[in-house]
């Protein structure tokens, strides 16, 4: 006997179910639209960030304050005996190309401004300022301090930049006067004693290793520039480098890889390597990459935040954070991943080696956003003008 298959009579869908279905559908559409907004916001912020990184937003005066004023002083007066004045400087009164070439290459060796002679190192800004930035900066400083208003174009800067990489820093005022503008008047000659020789033993350790560990250059790069989590070493104080290597051995600073490396080095190797890297000069390859707020980062580095008991970083790490030998390392042009990791390491205790535990308290007072802001800002600063000189063919 055939069984009867039950069936339901047609009944309309109950109203509540319909309402729920419609509500769910509306919710879905709303989420899609909302998500679409996230995409727009994300894109807009990324293009802002790219614009920020090219610092297109800063005009000449702002660039001067953030890039030059810590050394040359806000009124361009310089620092007696250390940093030449910009106010009424013949270098600014000369053609705009002179200032441009100085910014692109930096200066080593003696230079005469007004009645005084200076012998310092002016950093090269080639790796951290765009062509447009340099045009704005040169126009601003020449207009403000030398009352000169003839213009430079971005094309001029782009052309000069191609040569800047090969030339290295200007060797004192004499070379600038001879090569760029004779109207600068008599300039002191470069003394040959500043020519540093490369230590062949250190160079071999760095580029080939000692047979017991990997070559330093295989991670830190041939020019000590580092990348991402591997720190830049070029231009760090010699004693600081040697101290860090020692601290890896004692375990006051912990990192499995570097601890293995350091244990294979003799104390005299550490000093040699420190000397070797401290005079190494290399362009910056660091880039702000943590999405930090660069304006906030600049404020913290230059002024600190007293409301939170944070001293400015430049008060210890020196103007432009170029470091103060022997104990305070340079922070400029350091990779943001590495800087942020160190600031975290002082809080977590994997790094506990700063003199007088100075950095522990500072790192603890930086919150996540500030840590990223500082790390990103430091990456936009020019590299240390280490006392290296170009054309070092002596040694090997």
């Amino acid at each position, binding site marked *: 006997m055939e069984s009867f298959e039950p069936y339901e009579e047609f009944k309309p869908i109950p109203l509540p179910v319909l309402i729920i279905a419609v509500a769910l559908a509306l919710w879905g559409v709303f989420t899609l639209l909302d998500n679409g907004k*996230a995409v727009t916001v994300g894109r807009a*912020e990324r293009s802002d960030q790219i614009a920020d990184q090219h610092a297109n937003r800063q005009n000449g005066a702002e660039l001067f304050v953030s890039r030059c004023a810590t050394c040359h002083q806000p009124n361009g007066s310089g620092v007696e005996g250390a940093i030449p004045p910009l106010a009424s400087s013949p270098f600014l009164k000369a053609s705009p190309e002179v200032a441009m070439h100085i910014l692109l290459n930096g200066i080593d060796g003696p230079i005469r401004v007004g009645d005084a002679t200076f012998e310092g190192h002016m950093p090269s800004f080639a790796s951290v300022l765009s062509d447009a930035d340099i045009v704005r900066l040169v126009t601003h400083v020449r207009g403000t301090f030398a009352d000169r208003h003839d213009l430079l174009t971005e094309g001029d800067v782009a052309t000069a930049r191609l040569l800047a990489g090969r030339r290295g820093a200007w060797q004192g005022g004499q070379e600038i006067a001879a090569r760029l503008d004779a109207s600068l008047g008599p300039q002191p000659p470069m003394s040959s004693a500043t020519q540093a020789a490369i230590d062949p033993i250190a160079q071999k350790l760095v580029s080939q290793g000692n047979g017991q560990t*990997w070559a330093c250059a295989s991670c830190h790069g041939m020019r000590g520039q580092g*990348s991402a989590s591997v720190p830049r070493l070029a231009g760090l104080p010699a004693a600081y480098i040697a101290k860090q290597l020692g601290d890896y051995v004692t375990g006051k600073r912990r990192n*499995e890889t570097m601890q293995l490396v350091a244990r294979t080095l003799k104390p005299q190797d550490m000093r040699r390597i420190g000397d070797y890297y401290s005079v190494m000069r290399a362009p910056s390859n660091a880039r702000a*990459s943590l999405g930090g707020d660069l304006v906030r980062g600049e404020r913290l580095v230059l002024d600190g935040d007293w409301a939170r008991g944070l001293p400015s970083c430049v008060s210890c790490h020196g103007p432009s954070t170029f470091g103060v030998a022997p104990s305070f390392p340079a922070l400029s042009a350091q990779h943001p*991943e590495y800087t942020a990791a160190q600031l975290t390491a002082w809080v977590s205790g994997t790094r506990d080696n700063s003199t007088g535990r100075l950095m522990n308290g500072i790192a603890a007072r930086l919150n996540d956003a500030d840590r990223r802001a500082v790390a990103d800002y430091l990456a936009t600063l020019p590299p240390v003008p280490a006392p290296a000189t170009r054309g070092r063919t002596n040694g090997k």
Partner: protein
Amino acid sequence: MNRMVPLAILALAILAFATLMLVIAPAIQIRSEAPTPGLKPYTAQQLRGRTQYVAQGCIYCHSQQPRSIDQAPDAERGWGRASVASDYAYDRPHLLGTMRTGPDLFNVGARLPSRGWHLTHLYQPRAIFGWSIMPAYPYLFERKEHAEPGDVVIILPADRAPKKGVIVAKREALDLVAYLQSLDHTFPAPTRAVRDDGYAEKGEPR
């Protein structure tokens, strides 16, 4: 059963709709993406290494998809910026991975550029990280009495080194490391690239 035909049609329609939205639409969206500027195609050796990466099962423990900073602090860990679709232009299939037992490897070539380090680490991860749970791959290496010309001898701390002879890398190991070194996507992502923006809101860091 009643109403077989409408039921079947409805079921197929739902499947077709899902396929359209989850497979066809994304494929159309991604197909028009050019490789990210700066991305280089793999060399023959890197491709062989990529095959090793798949064969050795590295993908079960390692992802290749850094997240944006509002989802996870991957950038601060040195794992790189959030990846975008066009970063995978030469990866067929992509090796995104689903597990992070070990670190993300999408930018391992930037943060660990040393060939020597990778060889030591593959031969015995615990020679570097005493606590590591990554498997060792000793069969990608061989022990020899003396290194011959062209051999790559790996560096080992004294307590891991063989009593006699040296450990040299086989071709598989060298290929795999060449692939790892090529994993460097630190060039900037185009602003309009196809990517996951999560729940981005104005004023949040990305």
